[in-house]
Protein backbone atom coordinates (compact mmCIF):
# COMPACT_ATOMS: atom_id res chain seq x y z
CA UNK A 1 0.00 0.00 0.00
CA UNK A 2 1.44 3.37 -0.91
CA UNK A 3 2.47 5.78 1.75
CA UNK A 4 0.02 8.56 0.93
CA UNK A 5 -2.89 6.13 1.14
CA UNK A 6 -1.67 4.92 4.50
CA UNK A 7 -1.39 8.50 5.67
CA UNK A 8 -4.91 9.25 4.50
CA UNK A 9 -6.33 6.17 6.22
CA UNK A 10 -4.45 7.16 9.36
CA UNK A 11 -6.12 10.55 9.25
CA UNK A 12 -2.97 12.46 8.36
CA UNK A 13 -3.88 13.51 4.81
CA UNK A 14 -6.99 14.98 3.24
CA UNK A 15 -8.70 13.18 0.38
CA UNK A 16 -7.89 16.10 -1.93
CA UNK A 17 -4.20 15.42 -1.45
CA UNK A 18 -4.46 11.94 -2.96
CA UNK A 19 -3.93 11.01 -6.57
CA UNK A 20 -7.08 9.84 -8.38
CA UNK A 21 -5.91 6.22 -8.14
CA UNK A 22 -5.15 6.51 -4.45
CA UNK A 23 -8.47 8.31 -3.97
CA UNK A 24 -10.34 5.39 -5.54
CA UNK A 25 -8.49 2.97 -3.31
CA UNK A 26 -9.24 5.12 -0.31
CA UNK A 27 -12.94 4.96 -1.10
CA UNK A 28 -12.79 1.20 -1.32
CA UNK A 29 -11.11 1.09 2.08
CA UNK A 30 -13.74 3.37 3.56
CA UNK A 31 -16.39 1.00 2.25
CA UNK A 32 -14.55 -1.91 3.81
CA UNK A 33 -14.36 -0.11 7.16
CA UNK A 34 -18.09 0.57 6.96
CA UNK A 35 -18.76 -3.10 6.29
CA UNK A 36 -16.43 -4.07 9.11
CA UNK A 37 -18.50 -1.90 11.44
CA UNK A 38 -21.59 -3.81 10.36
CA UNK A 39 -19.92 -7.22 10.52
CA UNK A 40 -20.55 -9.34 13.57
CA UNK A 41 -23.17 -8.87 16.23
CA UNK A 42 -25.17 -5.65 16.43
CA UNK A 43 -25.28 -5.79 20.19
CA UNK A 44 -25.29 -7.90 23.29
CA UNK A 45 -27.56 -10.94 23.25
CA UNK A 46 -30.86 -10.89 25.07
CA UNK A 47 -30.42 -11.84 28.70
CA UNK A 48 -26.83 -10.73 29.06
CA UNK A 49 -27.82 -7.57 30.90
CA UNK A 50 -29.88 -9.53 33.42
CA UNK A 51 -27.00 -11.95 33.89
CA UNK A 52 -24.62 -9.11 34.56
CA UNK A 53 -27.02 -7.38 36.93
CA UNK A 54 -27.48 -10.64 38.85
CA UNK A 55 -23.72 -10.94 39.19
CA UNK A 56 -23.40 -7.35 40.34
CA UNK A 57 -26.13 -7.81 42.90
CA UNK A 58 -24.35 -10.91 44.16
CA UNK A 59 -21.13 -8.91 44.39
CA UNK A 60 -22.79 -6.42 46.69
CA UNK A 61 -23.85 -9.03 49.18
CA UNK A 62 -21.91 -9.78 52.31
CA UNK A 63 -20.47 -13.29 52.76
CA UNK A 64 -23.16 -14.05 55.35
CA UNK A 65 -25.90 -12.93 52.99
CA UNK A 66 -24.46 -15.14 50.26
CA UNK A 67 -24.52 -18.15 52.57
CA UNK A 68 -28.11 -17.42 53.55
CA UNK A 69 -29.00 -17.04 49.88
CA UNK A 70 -27.43 -20.34 49.05
CA UNK A 71 -29.61 -22.05 51.61
CA UNK A 72 -32.87 -20.33 50.84
CA UNK A 73 -32.71 -19.87 47.06
CA UNK A 74 -34.44 -22.54 45.02
CA UNK A 75 -32.12 -24.47 42.79
CA UNK A 76 -32.39 -27.61 40.70
CA UNK A 77 -31.16 -30.69 42.51
CA UNK A 78 -30.22 -33.73 40.51
CA UNK A 79 -31.12 -36.97 42.25
CA UNK A 80 -31.15 -40.47 40.86
CA UNK A 81 -34.76 -41.67 40.77
CA UNK A 82 -33.93 -44.76 42.82
CA UNK A 83 -32.26 -42.72 45.54
CA UNK A 84 -35.11 -40.20 45.43
CA UNK A 85 -37.67 -42.94 45.93
CA UNK A 86 -35.69 -44.45 48.76
CA UNK A 87 -35.36 -41.07 50.47
CA UNK A 88 -39.08 -40.39 50.07
CA UNK A 89 -39.90 -43.80 51.50
CA UNK A 90 -37.60 -43.21 54.47
CA UNK A 91 -39.15 -39.83 55.22
CA UNK A 92 -42.64 -41.26 54.84
CA UNK A 93 -41.77 -44.09 57.19
CA UNK A 94 -40.67 -41.58 59.82
CA UNK A 95 -44.09 -39.91 59.82
CA UNK A 96 -46.00 -43.13 60.06
CA UNK A 97 -43.92 -44.77 62.75
CA UNK A 98 -45.99 -45.62 65.84
CA UNK A 99 -45.41 -43.02 68.53
CA UNK A 100 -45.94 -43.65 72.23
CA UNK A 101 -49.09 -45.73 72.63
CA UNK A 102 -49.14 -46.73 69.00
CA UNK A 103 -51.21 -43.85 67.65
CA UNK A 104 -50.26 -43.01 64.05
CA UNK A 105 -49.75 -39.31 63.36
CA UNK A 106 -49.46 -37.56 60.00
CA UNK A 107 -48.40 -34.01 59.21
CA UNK A 108 -51.15 -31.51 58.72
CA UNK A 109 -51.16 -28.53 56.43
CA UNK A 110 -47.94 -29.39 54.68
CA UNK A 111 -49.17 -28.07 51.36
CA UNK A 112 -48.49 -24.46 50.52
CA UNK A 113 -51.21 -22.70 48.58
CA UNK A 114 -50.15 -20.07 46.10
CA UNK A 115 -52.42 -17.06 46.07
CA UNK A 116 -52.27 -13.71 44.44
CA UNK A 117 -50.47 -14.61 41.23
CA UNK A 118 -52.48 -12.35 38.93
CA UNK A 119 -50.80 -9.35 37.26
CA UNK A 120 -51.94 -5.96 38.46
CA UNK A 121 -52.10 -2.54 36.87
CA UNK A 122 -49.53 -0.11 38.21
CA UNK A 123 -49.91 3.62 37.80
CA UNK A 124 -46.69 5.45 37.01
CA UNK A 125 -46.49 9.19 37.45
CA UNK A 126 -43.77 11.78 37.04
CA UNK A 127 -43.74 15.54 37.44
CA UNK A 128 -41.71 16.76 34.48
CA UNK A 129 -43.03 20.12 33.24
CA UNK A 130 -40.17 20.64 30.80
CA UNK A 131 -40.23 17.17 29.28
CA UNK A 132 -41.29 16.54 25.71
CA UNK A 133 -41.70 12.79 26.24
CA UNK A 134 -41.62 10.51 29.25
CA UNK A 135 -41.56 6.72 29.16
CA UNK A 136 -41.01 3.91 31.63
CA UNK A 137 -38.62 1.02 31.34
CA UNK A 138 -37.44 -1.58 33.75
CA UNK A 139 -36.34 -5.12 34.25
CA UNK A 140 -39.87 -6.16 33.27
CA UNK A 141 -39.26 -4.76 29.76
CA UNK A 142 -35.58 -5.64 29.47
CA UNK A 143 -35.00 -1.94 30.08
CA UNK A 144 -36.73 -0.91 26.92
CA UNK A 145 -38.81 2.18 27.65
CA UNK A 146 -41.94 0.72 26.15
CA UNK A 147 -44.64 2.49 28.13
CA UNK A 148 -45.00 6.07 27.04
CA UNK A 149 -46.61 8.27 29.66
CA UNK A 150 -49.04 10.99 28.66
CA UNK A 151 -49.70 14.51 29.84
CA UNK A 152 -53.07 15.28 28.25
CA UNK A 153 -53.72 18.56 30.05
CA UNK A 154 -50.16 19.85 29.71
CA UNK A 155 -49.68 20.49 33.41
CA UNK A 156 -46.37 18.64 33.48
CA UNK A 157 -47.73 15.58 35.22
CA UNK A 158 -47.06 12.52 33.09
CA UNK A 159 -48.81 9.27 33.86
CA UNK A 160 -49.63 5.85 32.48
CA UNK A 161 -50.62 2.38 33.55
CA UNK A 162 -48.78 -0.87 33.02
CA UNK A 163 -49.85 -4.43 33.72
CA UNK A 164 -47.11 -6.07 35.75
CA UNK A 165 -46.74 -9.50 37.31
CA UNK A 166 -46.33 -9.81 41.08
CA UNK A 167 -42.78 -9.48 42.28
CA UNK A 168 -40.10 -6.91 42.85
CA UNK A 169 -39.30 -4.80 39.82
CA UNK A 170 -36.71 -2.17 39.08
CA UNK A 171 -37.61 0.69 36.81
CA UNK A 172 -36.71 4.20 35.72
CA UNK A 173 -38.19 6.98 33.68
CA UNK A 174 -36.76 7.91 30.29
CA UNK A 175 -37.21 11.63 29.74
CA UNK A 176 -36.99 13.08 26.24
CA UNK A 177 -35.70 9.77 24.99
CA UNK A 178 -32.26 10.37 26.43
CA UNK A 179 -32.22 10.93 30.17
CA UNK A 180 -32.89 8.07 32.52
CA UNK A 181 -34.01 9.31 35.92
CA UNK A 182 -35.09 7.58 39.08
CA UNK A 183 -38.63 7.99 40.34
CA UNK A 184 -38.52 10.72 43.00
CA UNK A 185 -41.65 9.26 44.57
CA UNK A 186 -40.30 5.72 44.84
CA UNK A 187 -40.06 4.44 48.37
CA UNK A 188 -37.24 2.09 47.59
CA UNK A 189 -34.19 2.16 45.39
CA UNK A 190 -31.42 -0.19 44.56
CA UNK A 191 -27.90 0.74 43.57
CA UNK A 192 -27.05 -0.31 40.05
CA UNK A 193 -23.46 -0.88 41.08
CA UNK A 194 -22.08 2.19 39.39
CA UNK A 195 -23.29 5.02 41.51
CA UNK A 196 -26.79 5.33 40.07
CA UNK A 197 -30.04 4.14 41.57
CA UNK A 198 -32.90 2.25 40.05
CA UNK A 199 -36.34 2.73 41.56
CA UNK A 200 -37.86 -0.36 43.06
CA UNK A 201 -41.47 -1.41 42.92
CA UNK A 202 -42.87 -4.32 44.92
CA UNK A 203 -46.12 -5.80 43.75
CA UNK A 204 -48.24 -8.34 45.52
CA UNK A 205 -50.57 -9.82 42.96
CA UNK A 206 -54.03 -11.21 42.97
CA UNK A 207 -57.55 -10.00 42.96
CA UNK A 208 -57.75 -6.91 45.08
CA UNK A 209 -54.22 -7.32 46.31
CA UNK A 210 -52.44 -4.12 47.13
CA UNK A 211 -49.53 -2.67 45.28
CA UNK A 212 -46.68 -0.73 46.71
CA UNK A 213 -46.47 1.24 43.54
CA UNK A 214 -45.59 4.86 44.06
Amino acid at each position, binding site marked *: *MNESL*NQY*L*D*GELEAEQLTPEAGA*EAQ*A*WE*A*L*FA*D*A*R*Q*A*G*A*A*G*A*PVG*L*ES*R*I*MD*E*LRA*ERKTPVARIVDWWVSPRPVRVRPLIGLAAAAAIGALFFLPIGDGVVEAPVGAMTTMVGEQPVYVQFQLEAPDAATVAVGGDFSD*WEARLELVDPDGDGTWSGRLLLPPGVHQY*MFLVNGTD*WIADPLAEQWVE*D*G*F*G*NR*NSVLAITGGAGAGSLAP
Partner: protein
Amino acid sequence: MLVRRYKDALYRYAERMTGRPDDAADVVQQAFIKGYRSLDRCRDPERVGGWLFRIAVNLCKDQLKGRARREVPLEATEPIRATRDLPEEGAERAEIREEIYRALQALSDEQREAFVLKHVEGWSYQEMAEKLEVSVPALKMRVHRARDQLQELLEHYR
Protein backbone atom coordinates in the same frame (compact mmCIF):
# COMPACT_ATOMS: atom_id res chain seq x y z
CA MET B 1 -27.77 2.05 33.96
CA LEU B 2 -24.15 1.73 32.96
CA VAL B 3 -24.67 -1.88 32.04
CA ARG B 4 -27.50 -0.97 29.71
CA ARG B 5 -25.56 1.92 28.24
CA TYR B 6 -22.32 0.14 27.48
CA LYS B 7 -23.11 -3.55 27.13
CA ASP B 8 -23.75 -3.41 23.38
CA ALA B 9 -20.58 -1.52 22.50
CA LEU B 10 -18.48 -3.75 24.72
CA TYR B 11 -20.09 -6.85 23.31
CA ARG B 12 -19.57 -5.77 19.71
CA TYR B 13 -15.90 -5.22 20.36
CA ALA B 14 -15.46 -8.45 22.33
CA GLU B 15 -17.28 -10.48 19.73
CA ARG B 16 -15.07 -9.16 16.93
CA MET B 17 -11.98 -9.76 19.01
CA THR B 18 -12.78 -13.24 20.29
CA GLY B 19 -14.80 -14.47 17.34
CA ARG B 20 -17.07 -16.37 19.71
CA PRO B 21 -20.36 -15.09 21.09
CA ASP B 22 -20.04 -17.04 24.34
CA ASP B 23 -16.57 -15.75 24.99
CA ALA B 24 -17.68 -12.24 24.15
CA ALA B 25 -20.54 -12.45 26.63
CA ASP B 26 -18.13 -13.68 29.29
CA VAL B 27 -15.78 -10.81 28.55
CA VAL B 28 -18.55 -8.26 28.91
CA GLN B 29 -19.79 -9.79 32.13
CA GLN B 30 -16.31 -9.89 33.58
CA ALA B 31 -15.64 -6.34 32.46
CA PHE B 32 -18.58 -5.04 34.46
CA ILE B 33 -17.70 -7.13 37.49
CA LYS B 34 -14.08 -6.04 37.40
CA GLY B 35 -15.25 -2.50 36.87
CA TYR B 36 -17.50 -2.76 39.88
CA ARG B 37 -14.76 -4.19 42.06
CA SER B 38 -12.32 -1.48 41.12
CA LEU B 39 -14.74 1.40 40.79
CA ASP B 40 -12.70 3.44 43.22
CA ARG B 41 -9.80 3.34 40.76
CA CYS B 42 -11.79 5.03 38.04
CA ARG B 43 -10.30 8.51 38.26
CA ASP B 44 -12.78 10.25 36.05
CA PRO B 45 -16.41 9.15 36.45
CA GLU B 46 -17.25 11.08 33.28
CA ARG B 47 -15.13 8.64 31.33
CA VAL B 48 -16.36 5.46 32.88
CA GLY B 49 -17.27 4.13 29.42
CA GLY B 50 -13.70 4.35 28.18
CA TRP B 51 -12.48 2.89 31.40
CA LEU B 52 -14.81 -0.11 31.05
CA PHE B 53 -13.73 -0.46 27.45
CA ARG B 54 -10.14 -0.65 28.51
CA ILE B 55 -10.98 -3.39 30.97
CA ALA B 56 -12.76 -5.27 28.17
CA VAL B 57 -9.78 -4.82 25.86
CA ASN B 58 -7.51 -6.40 28.45
CA LEU B 59 -9.96 -9.19 29.12
CA CYS B 60 -10.10 -9.96 25.42
CA LYS B 61 -6.33 -10.21 25.41
CA ASP B 62 -6.45 -12.62 28.32
CA GLN B 63 -9.18 -14.60 26.63
CA LEU B 64 -7.18 -14.92 23.44
CA LYS B 65 -3.99 -15.80 25.25
CA GLY B 66 -5.84 -18.57 26.99
CA ARG B 67 -6.77 -20.45 23.89
CA ALA B 68 -5.36 -21.21 20.51
CA ARG B 69 -6.76 -18.86 17.98
CA ARG B 70 -9.47 -20.29 15.77
CA GLU B 71 -8.25 -21.54 12.44
CA VAL B 72 -9.98 -19.73 9.63
CA PRO B 73 -10.39 -21.82 6.47
CA LEU B 74 -9.37 -19.03 4.16
CA GLU B 75 -8.88 -21.36 1.22
CA ALA B 76 -12.61 -22.02 1.39
CA THR B 77 -13.41 -18.35 1.25
CA GLU B 78 -15.06 -17.25 -1.96
CA PRO B 79 -13.53 -14.20 -3.60
CA ILE B 80 -15.37 -11.02 -2.76
CA ARG B 81 -16.68 -8.96 -5.61
CA ALA B 82 -16.05 -5.29 -6.08
CA THR B 83 -18.16 -3.17 -3.75
CA ARG B 84 -19.62 -1.02 -6.49
CA ASP B 85 -21.14 -4.08 -8.17
CA LEU B 86 -23.04 -5.07 -5.07
CA PRO B 87 -26.46 -4.07 -3.82
CA GLU B 88 -26.48 -1.91 -0.74
CA GLU B 89 -28.36 -4.43 1.36
CA GLY B 90 -29.43 -8.01 1.22
CA ALA B 91 -27.96 -11.44 1.37
CA GLU B 92 -24.89 -10.60 -0.66
CA ARG B 93 -24.04 -7.74 1.63
CA ALA B 94 -24.41 -9.98 4.64
CA GLU B 95 -22.14 -12.48 2.97
CA ILE B 96 -19.50 -9.84 2.38
CA ARG B 97 -19.64 -8.77 5.99
CA GLU B 98 -19.26 -12.35 7.04
CA GLU B 99 -16.15 -12.60 4.86
CA ILE B 100 -14.75 -9.48 6.43
CA TYR B 101 -15.53 -10.82 9.85
CA ARG B 102 -13.70 -14.02 9.07
CA ALA B 103 -10.77 -12.12 7.60
CA LEU B 104 -10.54 -10.10 10.81
CA GLN B 105 -10.35 -13.32 12.77
CA ALA B 106 -7.40 -14.37 10.61
CA LEU B 107 -5.32 -11.39 11.72
CA SER B 108 -2.97 -11.70 14.65
CA ASP B 109 -4.55 -10.67 17.94
CA GLU B 110 -2.51 -7.47 18.09
CA GLN B 111 -3.30 -6.52 14.53
CA ARG B 112 -6.99 -7.25 14.95
CA GLU B 113 -7.13 -5.26 18.17
CA ALA B 114 -5.41 -2.27 16.55
CA PHE B 115 -7.50 -2.45 13.38
CA VAL B 116 -10.81 -2.80 15.21
CA LEU B 117 -10.08 0.04 17.60
CA LYS B 118 -8.88 2.31 14.80
CA HIS B 119 -11.28 1.60 11.98
CA VAL B 120 -14.30 0.00 13.61
CA GLU B 121 -14.48 1.82 16.92
CA GLY B 122 -13.01 4.99 15.44
CA TRP B 123 -10.40 5.67 18.09
CA SER B 124 -7.48 7.98 17.40
CA TYR B 125 -3.97 6.63 17.65
CA GLN B 126 -3.49 8.81 20.71
CA GLU B 127 -6.49 7.29 22.47
CA MET B 128 -5.32 3.83 21.57
CA ALA B 129 -1.84 4.56 22.87
CA GLU B 130 -3.22 5.76 26.19
CA LYS B 131 -5.61 2.89 26.68
CA LEU B 132 -3.40 0.10 25.40
CA GLU B 133 -0.17 1.57 26.78
CA VAL B 134 1.54 1.04 23.44
CA SER B 135 3.39 3.73 21.50
CA VAL B 136 1.70 5.46 18.58
CA PRO B 137 4.33 4.29 16.03
CA ALA B 138 3.91 0.69 17.19
CA LEU B 139 0.15 0.98 16.85
CA LYS B 140 0.45 2.48 13.39
CA MET B 141 2.65 -0.41 12.38
CA ARG B 142 0.04 -2.87 13.61
CA VAL B 143 -2.75 -1.12 11.78
CA HIS B 144 -0.73 -0.90 8.57
CA ARG B 145 0.10 -4.57 8.73
CA ALA B 146 -3.49 -5.40 9.43
CA ARG B 147 -4.56 -3.44 6.37
CA ASP B 148 -1.90 -5.16 4.26
CA GLN B 149 -3.07 -8.51 5.50
CA LEU B 150 -6.70 -7.69 4.83
CA GLN B 151 -5.78 -6.47 1.38
CA GLU B 152 -4.40 -9.91 0.64
CA LEU B 153 -7.26 -11.76 2.26
CA LEU B 154 -9.91 -9.65 0.56
CA GLU B 155 -8.12 -8.91 -2.68
CA HIS B 156 -11.30 -8.95 -4.72
CA TYR B 157 -13.06 -6.60 -2.39
CA ARG B 158 -11.47 -3.40 -3.64
